């Protein structure tokens, strides 16, 4: 039997959503804005680091060495300077992130079979850029020196059968290009679901109280569970819409592969939603105004995003924060969504997380439903 009261409540909620431009923008535009911002701007892929070069040798050998840097994607040889001070001042003024000095006599040392040295100066203020630049410079330097070594061996007639004693052959699974966007975008689904559904349910319930409409709603024969369900259902719909919106944009614009089952993903998103909607409902029972609801949501959701492994890997966090992160439901959902989208795993691989989310869903929603009162006092 169709519950007309419930249908009516849900329809009313949708009319209100559609007539409120701010809610509409938050619901449909915000996820896309976040997606593009994070997809393009918040990337950890450091490329095109601006490099200032002081080549005091000016030989064919030094130019060949610089070519090795030029051909790698990591550096952009923007400045050729004539003194060390210039390198410092370029780094000071943020025009260059790194500098390289090839001392006089570089070619002589190299061809003479001796040890040639180059200096690499680095701006360490942004650790992400610095560590990438350092690793890249080391790698390029090593590869180049291996090549030089091989040539020397050739010259002395031992080069014919020269093989490196050890070679590490790497194979990158799931995200071979190691694109940040591929990692960030599935995570975005979790973040947006958490943020939007919690915020929207909390404010929409508090709004009834703030505007006094709750007084009229209370004196209707609507039951408590009908009021809760009627308030939450529209946001479940919006959440699924947003999930598909983010996924499609991710596939279209960032070529994110969806390796796993979309059905499983949506099913587990529903499980996650029970928790986030429950948190929204809980917040609505403590906040008196929409502003309070908004601030409380920020206060709850923002730390949980940082502790979820969305931006920073959990494994790198201090032990105490890692323990706290077990209390963050988003943590589990991120593992689930990244697992399904990137690795294409099934339930067998992620059941511990699913179990954890189920416990959260049960506890949070039950607690919220108990606290929710259909009265003014």
């Amino acid at each position: 039997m169709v519950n007309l009261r419930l249908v009516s409540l849900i329809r009313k909620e949708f009319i209100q959503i559609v007539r409120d431009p701010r809610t509409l923008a938050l619901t449909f535009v915000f996820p896309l804005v976040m997606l593009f911002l994070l997809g393009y701007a918040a990337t950890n892929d450091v490329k095109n680091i601006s490099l200032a070069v002081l080549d005091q040798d000016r030989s064919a050998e030094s130019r060949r060495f610089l070519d090795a840097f030029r051909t790698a994607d990591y550096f952009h040889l923007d400045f050729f300077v004539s003194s060390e001070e210039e390198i410092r001042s370029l780094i000071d003024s943020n025009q260059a992130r790194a500098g390289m000095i090839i001392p006089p006599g570089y070619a002589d040392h190299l061809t003479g079979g001796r040890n040639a040295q180059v200096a690499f100066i680095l701006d360490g203020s942004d650790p992400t850029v610095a560590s990438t630049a350092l690793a890249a410079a080391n790698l390029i330097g090593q590869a180049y020196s291996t090549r030089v070594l091989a040539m020397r061996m050739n010259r002395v007639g031992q080069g014919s059968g020269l093989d490196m004693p050890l070679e590490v052959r790497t194979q990158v699974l799931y995200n071979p290009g190691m694109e940040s966007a591929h990692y960030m975008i599935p995570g975005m689904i979790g973040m947006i679901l958490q943020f939007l559904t919690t915020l929207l349910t909390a404010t929409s319930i508090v709004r009834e109280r703030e505007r006094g409409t709750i007084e009229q709603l209370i004196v209707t024969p609507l039951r408590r569970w009908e009021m809760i369900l009627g308030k939450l259902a529209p946001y479940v719909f919006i959440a699924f819409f947003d999930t598909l919106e983010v996924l499609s944009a991710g596939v279209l614009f960032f070529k994110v592969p969806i390796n796993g089952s979309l059905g499983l993903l949506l099913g587990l998103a529903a499980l996650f939603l029970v928790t986030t909607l429950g948190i929204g409902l809980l917040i609505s029972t403590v906040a008196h105004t929409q502003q309070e609801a908004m601030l409380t949501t920020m206060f709850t959701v923002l730390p949980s995003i940082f502790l979820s492994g969305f931006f920073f890997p959990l494994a790198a966090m201090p032990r105490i924060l890692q323990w706290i992160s077990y209390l963050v439901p988003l943590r589990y959902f991120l593992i689930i969504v990244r697992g399904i989208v990137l690795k294409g795993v099934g339930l067998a691989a992620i059941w511990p997380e699913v179990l954890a989310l189920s416990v959260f869903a049960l506890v949070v929603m039950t607690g919220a439903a108990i606290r929710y009162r259909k009265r003014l006092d």
Partner: protein
Amino acid sequence: MIRTWKLGKSYGNRPAVVDLDLEVRPGEIYGLVGPDGAGKTTTIRLLCGALRPTAGQVEIAGVAMERSPEEARRHVGYLSQHFSLYDDLTVEENLQFFAEVRGLPGGAWHKRSAEILAFVGLEPFAGRLARHLSVGMKQKLSLAVALVAQPRVLLLDEPTTGVDPLTRQDFWQLIIRLVGEEHITVLLSTPYMDEATRCTRVGFLREGRLVMEGTPRSLRQLLAGRVMELSGAPDEVIQRVLSQTTGVLSAQRFGDRLHLLLDPHHRQEAVEKIIRGVEAEGGQIVHLGEVEPLLEDVFIALSEGFL
């Protein structure tokens, strides 16, 4: 139709309603009056189940609010003091929503809301957003919403506050027609004594207690012979003399006259003292005589504890 037994509500240890025994019979228009903070709004909210009592019980149409709130609320139409409908929904959408959640069968709301809109005179505004209505129209919409599911009991919390006199008149015509045509029982609170006079019975609340109850006529009888009307000049002299005369309990201005409430035991000597006092100070009394007490006089006497 509406009954309470020893109904009480406290916030912490501050009582808002104390030991309230109320019985409103079918077809009555019962008026709750009393000074601000006397507990009128709290009482009405207890009656419709928006607040949970800390003591006692409420029964609406024979259904106990405590035991079956949804069933009891089915019989109630409620108009709150502050506009509590959705201002981002149209007049008609508000009606439809509340008709459906109050359990009017699907489809039936359309005929009923057309009826109600015609009844309150809002037909031309059916498609207008509630936020674009005037205060008076908002109150009419609130009444329409309260009526849409054909309740047997109507609870109105200061329905005409902030409404212009003409609309107030309309509003009362509607209420009187409702009682006549739909046999609805009405309980309302009002700050206006002329409105209280129109009720079948009036109850006075003071500090959460029902201190007096009766028909407007019987209440006015309480002050029979104790109210005198006075006009004269200059004003300062008269005010000074009145404040110095024992036996004058209060003096209220009604236009160019004053209504004096007199202590029944010192009535005659008070009158003589006033006349002598005003003359001695060089003032002049134009008129001093007994009048029929108004409900206002009763209200003041009750509020100040002279009854």
